[in-house]
């Protein structure tokens, strides 16, 4: 039997430096472990479906200034995994249309968009009471956007109808508060913010003239899931 030799001083110094560099992460991990310990064992897993509505704002001023805040139906599903951080998949969809200021030689101009996003995130829940809990966690999202642009110049017997489609990847975090209202079900109020970069592609003309559009979106959502009877409890904070 040999005791493990101590690392030489230089190596110890390197390890210390690494720990100092990773200090914030380590501290966060320690806090997370402490919270997990306080919460006890992982809760009983159960699936829960939420229906809700979200108010969506795009972080890119070019988009938000044009279409303004949009309201989106929201559907989420808590996955039945026995983790401290409850994974959740959510889907939302919104669309918009806006008349554009047509040049004087054109009769009409408009643009419209369809936007659908799927987010996958985890929520660590902190139970404050039997009825109230708070949650927070990271999110990743895959958004699909399709925009249509129409410009009509009847004097020239021209109508240009164009559209573009892109997939947008974003990542962010969310906060939420959850209230159990007995037989009324569970209500959640959440706020999500996601960031990503969308290539602003040139649809007509030279595609090499594309420009990056840094942005993302934030949304406030209100969701409801029905009360679950028969001994199955929805929500990990009830575990």
């Amino acid at each position, binding site marked *: 039997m040999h005791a493990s030799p101590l690392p030489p001083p230089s190596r110890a110094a390197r390890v210390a430096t690494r720990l100092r560099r990773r200090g914030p992460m380590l501290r966060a991990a320690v806090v997370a472990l402490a919270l997990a310990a306080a919460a006890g064992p992982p809760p009983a897993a159960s699936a829960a479906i939420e229906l809700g509505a979200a108010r969506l704002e795009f972080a*890119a001023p*070019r*988009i938000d*200034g*044009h*279409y303004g805040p949009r309201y989106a139906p929201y559907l989420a599903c808590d996955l039945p995994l026995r983790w401290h951080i409850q994974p959740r998949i959510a889907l939302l969809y919104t669309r918009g249309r806006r008349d*554009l*200021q*047509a*040049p*004087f*030689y054109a009769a009409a*101009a408009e*643009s419209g*968009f369809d936007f659908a996003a799927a987010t996958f995130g985890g929520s660590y829940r902190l139970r404050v009471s039997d009825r109230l809990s708070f949650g927070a966690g990271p999110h990743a999202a895959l958004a699909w*956007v399709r*925009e249509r*642009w129409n*410009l009509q*110049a009847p*004097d*020239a*017997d*021209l109508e*240009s109808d*164009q559209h*573009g489609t*892109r997939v947008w990847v974003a990542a962010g975090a969310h906060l939420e508060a959850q209230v159990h209202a007995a037989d009324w079900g569970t209500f959640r109020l959440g706020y999500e913010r996601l960031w990503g970069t*969308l290539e*602003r*592609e*040139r*649809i*007509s*003309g*030279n*595609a*090499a*003239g*594309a*420009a990056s*559009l840094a942005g993302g979106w934030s949304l406030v959502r209100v969701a409801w899931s029905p009360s679950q009877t028969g001994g199955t409890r929805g929500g990990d904070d009830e575990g």
Partner: protein
Amino acid sequence: MKVERLMAAVAGLLAAVAILAAAAASDLTTLEPWCRQLARHGPAVRSQPDPTAPLCVLDAGLLAAGQVRLLLDTGPRGGPAAEMRSAWQSDLPELIWEAASGHHAQVRVPVAALDELARLPGLFHAGRPRTGLLLDDVVSAGVTEIGADAFVAHATDGDPIRIGIIDQGFAGAEALIGTELPAETRTAAFYGDAGGAGDLSGGGTDHGTACAEIIHDVAPGARLYLASMQTSLELQAAMRWMIDSGVDVISHSVGWFEGGGDGGGPLNEIVAEALDAGLLWVNAAGNQAQAHWGGPFRDTDGDGRHEFDAAGDETITFDAGAGGRSFTLVLTWDRWPYSTDLGYDIEIFEDGERVASTADLYSGRYAYRALAHARTVGRQLDIGVRRTTGAETAHLRLFRLDAGETFSEHRTPAGSLLLPADAPRVLAVGAYDVASGELEEFSARGPTVAGDEKPELIAPDRVATASRASFSGTSAAAPHAAGAAALLLASTPEAPFFDFRWRASELRGLLAAYAAPAPGLDPGSTSWGRLRLPRAPLAPAGRRLPLPACGQPPLTLRLRRPPPTPAALEIYDLLGRRIASEHGAGGALVALGATEFLWKGCDSDGRPVASGRYWVRLTTQAEAAPVLLLR
């Protein structure tokens, strides 16, 4: 005896080897004849084109310092030239590689190495690089003429439109950036170096600078990309730089000859790359309408010499003109990229004696011949075309290139478009005099050899720029159309996620719809009419404004947009008496630029005007718009 026979056989074998070696050493058939002369007679390289010397017909490719620039061709059965690079450079280390595309490579070699170059494996042909013709040989009030000054206010504030200008040279352009050219002007120099480290001034010509100035005048919000070039492969490099830079519109005031005038040929294949990328290519139509003969080869008497008319005239006779002046002729026909089985040559006769022929200069690989000649004083000069290879009939195009000169007989303005203005998707622009409105006689006419009605538009020339007091030719007209297209692009409303614009085909539709009809012009002058941008209606009448008190802060009268033509403002009372005018005494009414006027509320004598209603009348050369004031 046997020994003698053996020795004789060995001697014969050695002699045969020596003959073959000698033949190999002098095998220069891949070189164009002028190149062979260089190889045989030493480094008689001229640094400047000398049109009086047959060696140097359009020889901008000749370089100084004992080097010559050449276009190498792997031929119809060869592979891509780029694949030969290492083999050729291994065999000929002096070979300097400049660019390659398809079967062609542009290289430089010392004149002393031409012999070795001729023996490179896989070499089909070595000749002069293909160069273009600047179209300014004949002279910007065109901005107002086409309505760009009124239209420019309708450009959106979004991403700027990018316009590329590919030209031979931009001498003086860098000094004009920030003043006559936009501050956001990018440059790249491919002239003399397809890698982009060439000469932006193109040997000192300001042709491209003047074109860029016109575009900036027409579309001041556009961002300009200037690229100099000289040869077709440098044009390709410049064009690719434009595509990579996101350029929307390319303006090219250069004409080329590498095609049969039917929209095809190697030069149009290069341009097609930009068109396929979605760019709008605007090109000067050409200035050779009166210095062109075009039509099928005709030889009713079977002597091999082309007949220029039904009467059987086999020559174009030059008028007396100034003796001693040199001129250049170019002959092309519709057989590209190779025409090894069909060849025609230009012949020049003085007093019936043949004095020059392209047969002495060309290897007969391509449907292209050029011949420069200095005429002899006092001798009758005739031009002829002879079929020297094959028996088929092609559509011939014969041009005279010296500035301002024409064919004195057998002129055929129809079909005189240079390349790439003959391509269907290229917007070809002819020229009319901005002052008189008359079509320029030299402006190239359609239809093309393929029957397409071109040029689509005619636009103003004889305009002034900072670099040129008077810029004429279709070279000056094309930038007006490129700028107008950019303004239409800039007027499109923006969507936020994607950058939508009018497509190139839609821009063509808009320019066609708003072109002003040009009745009474020669056939083939223009298929759409004169370049015009749509005109906005003037501001609505009847607005109520407070009458200023004389001596107090004046009233600002602001027009919604600049008037389409120079405007004068006047103020009348209800009895129709003129109270104040912009140019009246006392400075009661003062113009602050094109869209703002200050009225002090006084009449022209400086007296306060009484309360009541007054008319403000804006008079332009075309229209007047009353505005009602009420105190």
